[in-house]
């Protein structure tokens, strides 16, 4: 006990002296939350479109006006098709609506009338969004115009409500998810260097020739960085809930418990890298590759897991962030769902224990080569 206490105390002193671990624990989440908050925005901002109207019937000018009624769309009316298509090429506008000169004539004759809609396919999401928008506006116009009897009566009328996130506010799910990414990075980065550092500076040689046991070395690394990691986790939550006002519907105790399990697994990855490589530079490179990128790309935060190829779906099963992201998103937006919390906890606990055993087994008590 005394030895473990001494090792933990030593590590805490080193954390205090070395600003880099404090920067990783507290400045990194700050930067990353700002990036997720403002840099990655999945919500639509105002989109510009061009409208060319060749039909000068007064009914049609109403349709032209209603294109610009939404707060998300700016429409610009022009007669110069060349000018509009130039603007589309330069990405000044995202779509063009052309109303042909026989549009109202055909409607008068109760024939179907065509609208031409050109969208910018290089931004697929915006293009689809515009197509739907224009369809919706023209239908609305038709229903209120004198041609309304032409519409077939609508029998099915979907009333849409978005649960858990009424305003479809992107950062309500991005921010809690980003905590998972940040915590993966923190858990791995904090620990990836600390064993390698002892080997590089030659202090491991001294430890190995004292009364220290293998369990002392492993716990002596887990405990202090777990404490620091939990402080960083609390800091993340305060930023998210307190400063950025992300609504939290869950239970703080459950959140803390599952987060602690998640931190335990991330630290395991970091310590395993450090124990195996014994080289700080190499360890830091590998931890970004192994820790950060899969967490970002394969955890389901950015790309839904269900749309990945089957093999990748299986790979995500061993990634701790996958379970944590599912948990934290539901915890924030829907409140505690026992089945999700229990499933995530069990998986994280199993992964954490496997990693702990791997770290323990790989901790050398002798020098392997000179």
């Amino acid at each position, binding site marked *: 006990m005394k030895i473990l206490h001494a090792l933990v*105390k030593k590590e805490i002193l080193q954390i205090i002296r070395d600003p880099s671990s404090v920067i990783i624990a507290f400045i990194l989440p700050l930067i990353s939350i700002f990036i997720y908050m403002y840099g990655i925005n999945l919500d639509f901002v105002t989109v510009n479109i061009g409208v060319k109207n060749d039909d000068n019937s007064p009914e049609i000018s109403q349709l032209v006006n209603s294109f610009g009624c939404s707060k998300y769309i700016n429409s610009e009316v022009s007669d110069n098709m060349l000018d509009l298509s130039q603007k589309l090429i330069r990405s000044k506008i995202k779509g063009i609506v052309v109303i042909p000169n026989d549009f109202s004539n055909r409607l008068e004759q109760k024939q179907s009338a065509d609208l031409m809609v050109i969208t910018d396919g290089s931004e697929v999401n915006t293009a689809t969004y515009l197509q739907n928008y224009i369809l919706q506006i023209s239908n609305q116009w038709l229903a209120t115009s004198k041609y309304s009897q032409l519409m077939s009566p609508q029998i099915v009328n979907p009333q849409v409500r978005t649960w858990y996130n009424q305003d479809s506010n992107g950062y309500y799910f991005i921010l809690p998810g980003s905590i998972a990414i940040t915590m993966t990075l923190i858990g791995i980065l904090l620990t990836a260097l600390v064993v390698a550092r002892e080997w590089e500076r030659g202090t491991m*040689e001294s430890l190995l020739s004292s009364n*220290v046991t293998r369990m002392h070395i492993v716990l002596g690394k887990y405990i202090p960085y777990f404490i620091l990691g939990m402080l960083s986790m609390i800091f993340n939550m305060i930023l998210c809930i307190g400063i950025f006002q992300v609504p939290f519907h869950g239970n703080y105790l459950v959140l803390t418990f599952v987060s602690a399990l998640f931190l335990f697994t991330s630290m395991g990855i970091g310590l395993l890298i450090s124990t195996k490589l014994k080289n700080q530079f190499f360890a830091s490179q590998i931890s970004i590759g192994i820790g950060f990128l899969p967490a970002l790309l394969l955890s389901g935060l950015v790309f839904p897991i269900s749309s990945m190829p089957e093999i990748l779906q299986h790979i995500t099963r061993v990634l701790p962030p996958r379970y944590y992201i599912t948990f934290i998103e539901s915890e924030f937006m829907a409140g505690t769902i026992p089945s999700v919390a229990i499933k995530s906890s069990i998986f994280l606990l199993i992964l954490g224990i496997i990693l702990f055993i791997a770290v323990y087994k790989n901790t050398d008590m*002798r020098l392997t080569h000179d």
Partner: protein
Amino acid sequence: MDAVIIKNLTKKFKEITAINVLSLKIEKGKITGLIGADGSGKTTLIRLIIGLLLPDYGEISVLDLNPSVEKDELNKKIGYMPQKFGLYEDLTVIENLKLYADLKNVPHDFEKLLKFTDLKKFQSRLAGALSGGMKQKLGLACVLLGSPEFLLLDEPSVGVDPISRRDLMQMVCNLISPKTTVLWSTSYMDEAHSFDTAIVLDQGKVIYQGNPSDLAKTSEEFENKVIDLMGGYQKTKSRIAESYISKKTDVQYTVVADNLEKLYGDFYAVKNNSFKIKKGEIFGLLGPNGAGKSTSFKMMCGLLKPTNGIAHIMGIDITEDPEKARSNLGYMAQKFSLYESLTVKQNLDFFSEIYGIHDQNLKTRVSEIIDIFGFSQIQKQKAGELPLGFKQKLSLACALIHNPPILFLDEPTSGVDVITRREFWNHITSLAQKGVTVLVTTHFMDEAEYCDRISLFYKGETVAIGTPSALKKKVKAKNMEEAFMKLILESDK
């Protein structure tokens, strides 16, 4: 009674045989010195004895324990100081002591140790901020905690000045009980000569074991005998010096320091340092660790801006035209500063290129250097994997690649074995005869005798300056080591 019994021990690293069917016994309660050339297997042997490495073949018994299986038991009885001291540089002196006391489960009673090491007033200083000598004392203090039965010190006195070395020796002698066994690896022959037993290792084998006084009466003689045991050293003409092409110059004093000063806050690292070095002179800068030698060196090469004063290299003011002044310099830093991941030849190619040697000239010059330094066998090896002596030789080769008229050598022989040191000084003296001006620092007092003049440096100031014989005469000392101590102690009064 024997503390260590080794029978037919062999240890290989890939193709290299570090320990080759070695057998030896180390007597209990004695101080045993372990000497040998670089790469002779000293560190590997110590690590095998305490179970940090496992043997390939053979038997080891240490304090009646088998280090391969009973390492935990053995750890409680030993104190081991590795070459890098094993200190936590970001912990303070007292925090390091407390940590190691807790790890060994001994009470926090450091009064005696702090008094002996003179570290009392530096208790709250970070270990990383201590001078080399003080680090070693602290490292030793940490190892001595809990009064181990068996003390193993791996080259504790590398890069340490004579005074700190004497202190270290006194610490060990005063702080251990008469029953304690000590195994002390060293490259200082005077140290080895003063021990109870000396073991000489060569290529992983014991080539001599016995009382050092039986081998030779004085430490100088002992050194010669050890060199003979290791295969002998034959002084030959230095091919390095022969191939040197000197530049014509009218400058009489090639290196001039005029009132150099360096101030850190209100602390003078260097205070009014002045000297003039003639063309072809070997000028030695001696002094204890932390006296300001390296700071002076860095100011002389324009790596550090002096607070006051001027340095002239070949008559050029170093602050005014540092590039031109530096093109006349070959500099060998204290720390190995070549690219460890490049091969020997790639390092040479690179340094030729940055000194402005290109294309065909580069090819001729590099193959010439490889030939005269004897690198042809190792030219494809990575620089980081070379034994220390070869690393130092490669550093010297890189410093000489552009035939500079001036050489700055900062502790060129630190950690190098006796034979390589002799070779080195043969090159240095021969180069000086061809007109190369040499400014050199060293902790080996026998090397100081090779210098034409010496400046003794202490606490940032010049304490004495003159030829070795004049300095010895001044304080009536029989050798340079004694002169060094007397002059330093005198200036302390």
